[in-house]
Structure formats: structure tokens, C-alpha cells
């Protein structure tokens, strides 16, 4: 049977996902609290995998906690830290434990993280990881050996609609679709006109697109992301709107902007859903959805 998330994707409803990040350490109180707050307002919860190349509690462990709380996990898997043997082993384990959704990522570079002298693996890339998922589903591993017990997954990937230049990204997008990406969670988008152009292209393919919504918490953060985060571009009018928020009200304005974007995406049926990244402010995700009229 298809995973709950896959059923939601195929239902035609406007799908909402969000994400939580495991702790650096064994204190999972904050993450468990976030799961409690989010589990009834979203269709699935991503658990990040050593996000930003910072070593943490593993994503598969975080997904187990999401499952225990009765919510639907999406396992983020990067190719940075594990070779093809470890990735396949973790995919088998995840499936056995009832974790059926997987987001296949390349992974951030080691030098941007907190273990700057570590060895980068990248034995596989995100396209090859998608194909690996489909290979396991065929009852074989990458060595061509038969599996005893065959898993099945709902596999997805990411795309950066604001990338400059966009053309190389679109080539990779098509390759990911060809290797079985059933859904995409995009990098943050703020400029709907630009996103519509991307969607016009993406609609040619048989895959679901969830627009990435990153909550703005201050004008400074918006400027910082535009300047420093690849593929994120916050238009000046939104930065001005954040800067114009009354003292102490910036987060509220950020929630309103995120809610407005989601509301328009849904109303105009521009894409199939949204993936909300609240980056440390997970507790306001229900407020964002309320602002979106959901």
C-alpha cells in the first residue's frame, strides 16, 4: 500500500510538509515538542540529515521518533556521509521500520559545516540515489544481487527554481524525474512570477511540486539569505516589508508573508503543495497555515 504521504500527493489536495532537525546530542525534547505541534497540521514531516554538514542525531532516528508520535516521516538522505553500501543498508532499515518516504539529496559540502576536516563521500549523487531506491524496489541491490524481502518507497528530490543560471538545474531536474522522483520540495521561493515560470516548465513532467517556504524572521535574515544562500532570492519589496515591521513584530510580519505566499500558491493552484521550513521557529508553523487560511 502507498505511504500516507504518497496517498496525499495522489489525492489532488494541496499538500503541506514541514521539517524538523534532530539535536546535536541526545536531548530530543525540542524535536519531540515540535513533532507534537506539527503532526496534526501537516501531511508529512521531513527529518534533516546532518543539515548544513553539521553532525547531529541521525535522520533515520529522527524519523523513528516521528513514527512513534503517529506522524508521517520523510527521510532526508544525503550522499555526503555514506557510501552506496551504507545508503542501501539504511534504506532497507528505514523501510522495515515503516519509514516509506525518502528525499534524495546530494548534501551540503563538508567545508561549510562543523567537521571541516572530514572526508566527503559522494560515492553516489542525488540522481544515482534515486535510481538506487528504484533498484532496491526491483528486488536487486546495486551489486546486482537478489534481495530477501523487497522494499517500496515514495521517493523525491529537490530543485532550486531561483538558481542562477537556471538551465543546468533544469537538466538535473529532468534527470531526477527520469530516475523516479515522484515529488520535489523546492528551495525557498519568494517571487511568485519567477516561480510560475519554473512551474510552466515543471508541469511538462509527471511529478509533484511542493514549493519551499522559508519563514523570514527579520529583514537582516532576508538580506543575509539573499546575499549568502545559493538559490535564495528575497525580492526588495519583501525585505522592505520586513524592515517596516513595528519593533518586535518582525516575526509576525514574516508569518504573514509566508501565509500570503502559501495562500496565493493554493488559490491559483500554481503547484501541488508547500514545504515549510521554519528554521528554528517550528512552533509557528500552525500560525503560518492559519495566515494562509488553512
Amino acid at each position, binding site marked *: 500500500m502507498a505511504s500516507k504521504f504518497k496517498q496525499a500527493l495522489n489525492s489532488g489536495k494541496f499538500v503541506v510538509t514541514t521539517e524538523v532537525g534532530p539535536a546535536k546530542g541526545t536531548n530530543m525534547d525540542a524535536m519531540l515538542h515540535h513533532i507534537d505541534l506539527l503532526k496534526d497540521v501537516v501531511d508529512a514531516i521531513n527529518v534533516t540529515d546532518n543539515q548544513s554538514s553539521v553532525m547531529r542525531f541521525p535522520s533515520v532516528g529522527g524519523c523513528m521518533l516521528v513514527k512513534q508520535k503517529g506522524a508521517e516521516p520523510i527521510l532526508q538522505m544525503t550522499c*555526503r556521509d555514506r557510501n*552506496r553500501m551504507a545508503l542501501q543498508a539504511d534504506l532497507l532499515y528505514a523501510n522495515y521500520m515503516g519509514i516509506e518516504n525518502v528525499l534524495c539529496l*546530494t*548534501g*551540503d*559540502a563538508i*567545508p*561549510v559545516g562543523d567537521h571541516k576536516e572530514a572526508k*566527503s563521500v*559522494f*560515492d*553516489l*549523487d*542525488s*540522481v*544515482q540515489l534515486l*535510481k538506487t531506491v528504484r533498484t532496491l524496489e526491483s528486488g536487486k541491490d*546495486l551489486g546486482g544481487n537478489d534481495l530477501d524481502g523487497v522494499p517500496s518507497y515514495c521517493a523525491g528530490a*529537490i*530543485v*532550486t527554481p531561483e*538558481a*542562477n*543560471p537556471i*538551465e*543546468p*538545474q533544469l*537538466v*538535473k531536474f*529532468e*534527470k531526477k524525474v*527520469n*530516475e523516479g522522483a515522484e515529488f520535489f520540495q523546492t*528551495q525557498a521561493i519568494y517571487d511568485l512570477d519567477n516561480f510560475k515560470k519554473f512551474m510552466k516548465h515543471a508541469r511538462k513532467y509527471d511529478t509533484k511540486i511542493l514549493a519551499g517556504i522559508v519563514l523570514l524572521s527579520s529583514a537582516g535574515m532576508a538580506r543575509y539569505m539573499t546575499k549568502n544562500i*545559493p*538559490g535564495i532570492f528575497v525580492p526588495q519589496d519583501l525585505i522592505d516589508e520586513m524592515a517596516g515591521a513595528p519593533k518586535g513584530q518582525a516575526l509576525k510580519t514574516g508569518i504573514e508573508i509566508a501565509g500570503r505566499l502559501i495562500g496565493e500558491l493554493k488559490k491559483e493552484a500554481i503547484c501541488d503543495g508547500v514545504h515549510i521550513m521554519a528554521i528554528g521557529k517550528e512552533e509557528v508553523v500552525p500560525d503560518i497555515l492559519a495566515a494562509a487560511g488553512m
Partner: protein
Amino acid sequence: MKSITKQKTLEEIGQLLDGLNSVFIAGCGTCATMTHTGGIEEVAAMKLSLQELGKTVTGTTVIPAACDDMTQETIKKYEDAIGSADAMLIMSCAMGVHRVSLYHKKAVIPALDTLFIGLEDNYGEFHEVCAQCGQCVLGETGGICPVTACHKGLVNGPCGGTNDGKCEVDKNRDCAWTLIHNKLAEQKRLDLMYKYQPPKNYQVTPKPKVTKIT
């Protein structure tokens, strides 16, 4: 092909020479001369540095090409000076260090770290062009190697970390896949970028790599 090297710190060289009081220094007249890490001048400077550390330098030379088997002749020629030293300090890439170690029983200490095999772009500027992966993809990537030129060595296109055609690791570095895309587009061969590239075979020749030309 050039073997690009960097001199170790004098502190590390001092640690490696701990207890080895007399030293014979050998540089290399090929790559290490070009990279200014093991030519005549650097060998002379090293001699002074070691003397300041209280070492006795029994002799110095610059081997024409330390990695070549002719190195054996140079070693024989300096037998007296080498024989009276506790160790040889080799200012060449690791291939030269290895070669010298084959020809003498004395302790061989590297003065350089071998960084990569590369080309010189401008005077004193080098970049890696080949990682010797054993499965050359240049025919499908417009002559630009993603295994070396992409920080992550990706073979199926760019990651999401690229911005304005640059790499997330260093904004001064070009994104290999943007370059490859543009080159293939210029050659009207962009269809090659859409081709799925399977995982690389990391055991083309199992480590340690050896081959015999037949």
C-alpha cells in the same frame, strides 16, 4: 603533468628530523623546481634553516627528476655525503621521495606535501585537472572534468549549492557544471548532459593501483 607540492612547516620538518642530527638534502629539478618548493634556491634556503636548527648538513643536490630511475645514479654519486648523514631530507613530491627510498637504506624524510597533479595557469598558479579516476568522462563533459573541478565530484549535473556560476565552497571558484553546461551548449552537444551517468567504479584497479602494459 606536474606534481604540485607545498613545503611542510619548519616546525614539522624539525619534528620529523628529531634525533637525526646530520642531514643530506636533495631537491628536484622538475616539478618541485617549477613550484618553487624544491629547486636550487629552496634547497639552499633549507640548508640554512636546518643549520639554524643545529643540524649538520653533509651535502645537497638537486636531482634532475627525482621520480625517474636515473635518480639511482645521483644517489651513487653522493654516497659519501649521504653515508655520513643520519637521514636524507627530500624536497620533491612523494613520487621522488619514494624513488629515493628505493635506492638507499638511510631514513628518507619528505620536506614537502604532495597536493595534486595539475597544470600551471599563470606564473605560480596551479589547478588540479585529473584525479586519475580510471574512467575518463571528458568526452561527455566538454573537456572539463567534473570529478576534479566539482568540489563534490558530481557526474550528473550541479548541486543546489551553485550560485551565479560559482561554487558554495568558494565564491571565487567556478561551478564546474555551469562551465560544462555552457561548453556543451556552445558545442551543440547539450544532450550529453541529460544522459544518466552511473555510479563510478572505484575499483577500476584496486588500491594500491598497479598496471602492466602488455
